[in-house]
């Protein structure tokens, strides 16, 4: 594979023309993507973690745009300029490679990829798992008081337990605003996945596993809760709305729950992080 100089005879300098088009396209498109599309990116600003995801998505999009344009502009440029004339039998130049271009390509893609991985790692650790399920012993834990909530998934509903409030169990999730929450996600039967879309939270619920995540809601709003791991026939119906409310409203609500649930609490099993279910055959 000999490296050869490009021929460049009596033709426009394609390399220069293509580079110019690509540079102009990137310079125009990247800011547009960052400033117009960026703020609209999911999942919005429902929590610190969600806001972080918006930033991450914007950064990734800003990095992906020039790459996308490089290949796209090149393909279009090549299709327009490097054609066989109708009925022609012309041969192209026998170029078999170019060591300089190949080396440059490898260096640049490696640099891009490594910086992406470094960025992702820093963001993941700095944001205490960035709202994702981080296993029973997360690597980083936020400081200060954390409101504990246990999310118990089963076919086909989520139940929420607040151990700090006497272990009251509700079928409906409410969280106080601006309070770091520590969620323990587990399952009673098959694998589910707890997904609070607007909060930027997702954690698989595995039987026998305590999957911990941290999230700090920053906006009083209604958020969607989905199951995002196929769990049987009513998987699509494992869907609910939760609420982020003011701390006062939360206190009122949780005490009300404690009163209503008091008779039921007597028969609930003792608090545990995980449950090892008996296998349920032929249920779904």
């Amino acid at each position, binding site marked *: 594979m000999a490296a050869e100089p490009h021929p460049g005879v009596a033709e426009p300098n394609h390399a220069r023309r293509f580079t110019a088009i690509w540079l102009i396209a990137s310079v125009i498109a990247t800011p547009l993507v960052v400033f117009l599309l960026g703020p609209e990116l999911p999942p919005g600003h429902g929590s610190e*973690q969600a806001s972080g995801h918006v930033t991450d998505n914007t950064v990734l999009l800003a990095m992906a745009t020039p790459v996308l344009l490089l290949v796209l502009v090149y393909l279009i440029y090549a299709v327009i300029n490097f054609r066989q004339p109708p009925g022609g039998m012309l*041969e192209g130049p026998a170029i078999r490679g170019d060591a300089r271009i190949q080396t440059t390509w490898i260096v640049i893609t490696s640099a891009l990829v490594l910086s*992406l*991985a470094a960025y992702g790692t820093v963001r993941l650790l700095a944001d205490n798992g960035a709202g994702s399920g*981080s296993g029973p012993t997360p690597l980083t834990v936020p400081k200060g008081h954390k409101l504990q909530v246990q999310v118990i998934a089963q076919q086909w509903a989520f139940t929420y337990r607040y151990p700090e409030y006497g272990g009251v169990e509700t079928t409906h999730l409410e969280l106080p605003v601006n309070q770091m929450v520590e969620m323990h996600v587990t399952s009673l039967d098959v694998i589910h*996945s707890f997904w609070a879309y607007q909060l930027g939270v997702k954690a*698989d619920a595995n039987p026998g596993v305590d999957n911990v995540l941290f999230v700090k809601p920053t906006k009083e709003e209604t958020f969607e809760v989905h199951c995002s791991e*196929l769990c049987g026939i009513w998987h699509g119906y494992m869907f609910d709305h939760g609420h982020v409310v003011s701390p006062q409203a939360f206190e009122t609500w949780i005490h009300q729950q404690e009163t209503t649930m008091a008779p039921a609490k007597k028969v609930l099993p003792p608090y545990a992080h995980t449950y090892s279910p008996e296998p349920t055959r*032929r249920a779904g």
Partner: protein
Amino acid sequence: MSTTAAAASTPRPVGRPRWRRLLGFNLLSAVILGIAGYYLGWFIGHRISTTKSFEFFSATDENDIALLLAYIFGVVGFLIGLGFANYPVSRMLGRPASLREKEQHGIGRYFGLCTDHKVVGIQYLVGIGLFFFIGGLNAMLIRTELLKSSPTFVGPNQYLSLVGMHGTMMMGMMTSGILGPFANYFVPIMIGARRMAFPRIEALTFWLLMAAGFILTSTIFFGGFPTGWTGYEPLNDQAVMGMDSYIVFFALVGISMCLLGLNMMATIITMRAPGLTWSRLPIFVWSVFATSVLMVLAAPMLVATLAMAALDRSIDTSFFVTGGGGSSYLFENLFWFFGHPEVYILAVPGFGIVLELIPVFTRKPLWGYRLAVSGMLGVTLLSFFVWQHHLFVSGINADLRPFYMLSTEIISIPTGFIFLCVMGTLWKARTSFSTPMLFCLGWAFNFLIGGLSGVFLSDTPSDTDTHGSFFVMAHFHYTIMGGLIFTFFAAIYYWVPKMTGLRFNERLSKIHFWSMFLAFNSTFMPLFVLGMEGMPRRVSFYEPKLHTLNVWVSISAFVLGLSMLVFLANTVYSLIFVRIKAESNPWRSKSLEWQVPTPVPVNNFEQIPIFDSDPYDYGTPVAIGGGQPAAVGA
């Protein structure tokens, strides 16, 4: 090593009565023995489980032991009926070895055990095509259901079965989508061999796959299965008997895949013609080699995992059931250790097709041959180090997520090599836009979108939003359908004229490409948006605010389905009704398979060719030391 004499002796005597020909080892006896084996297994299974130790059998009338045994015995009977036992038995009885005893002439050879790699290639193309259309039909039904935001068309159980069958059929069958038809047919010719290394195993891989396809389809008689193609435990353990169809299907596919890979590796390593050094190997053969490595290393993991799942279901072992000391993580780990190489088993042959075809249509040598090879081998190696990115939010081994993020992103470096080689080959080319070339360019666009959307999934914080949503669905349809299926069609339009000697109607081919390309993008581009707006995968119930976009996607999907009908119409019209003879080398290719006569003789070559260059001697020399235009090969 010529076996012409043996081949000529096989046609049956002409005067034999028709009924007499029905006896013996053929598809009919295979079906009869298959059914007999099925009922034998069913009977034995019920004898075994009459003891009361398996409570759920008596409670539910469901007997996994019986069904699993029925499937296994059925497959064995089917294979014996086809004649796969004849050769080993005759060898054990001390009869002499023969190489090509099942080589026949006439149309009948396509319906039985045949060891001619060209026959197997065409068998694969038709057989896989059949199941590809069944899988596609499932997709149409899924999209019909999603026209409404709550289930109306089918019940939730049938919906999940459709999703599972679509995914499993495509992921299982299409793993051999390019290796089955095109590698079996063309790799021996491209490397100057007269046959594959193991011709009987080659036939076996095909018939295993067909048996598997029918077993998966039979799941509808046993209640379907609710797990999708991933078959996660413990849902797998909980499911009704239809789940056993999934298990046996995928296990058979795994065995077929592994044997196919071994056969390809053995052929490519040992049977290359003189002068065909590794650095002269056609790039398609390299991609087949890389894929074979993946198949051989990954598929056994799948078979083992499914064997465990089958034992869990039938005799209550507890590999994956938490209550009995097992772990659902174990299944996820094992499955994705196979599952991620699997998606590269689907993608890498596509790379090979694109890189093989583009030089022909641009009239240029392949740009960066070694880079392309290292790209494919790099992908092969790295694909074994990324599987836990499927489990970023599962809580498994969470401290290692930065590593899997890194390895996943690193794999885009060798993938980028493939793009650079495509772009380099297009530089100052003389491109003619025939249908195969259009499909290759379609691949470039689709795989670009697929690859870049993968960046969002490889980044753990960003993956928290997109994981398990329609975004993932769109991503892997861009890489698999946009990557594999587009190149699959490129290969069909490029090579079927060689395989059949007949030409496709050019206008219908172009209509097929454009309708497929536009409908494909119109179907899957909005799915990125749906995923980002919070639609989980595999639901038949979704929020009304996403309704409009879903209707758009469904309509586009129907157009995509229609584009497949255009292809079918084109095939029937061009290859059955019009039958215009193709030129002997319509693309003016310099590759060896276009230099042998059409139809390809049984032994491919009169004399084994001697290679003195790679098959990319296109173009005019541009500078000192440029490529020398020379006739290739023989």
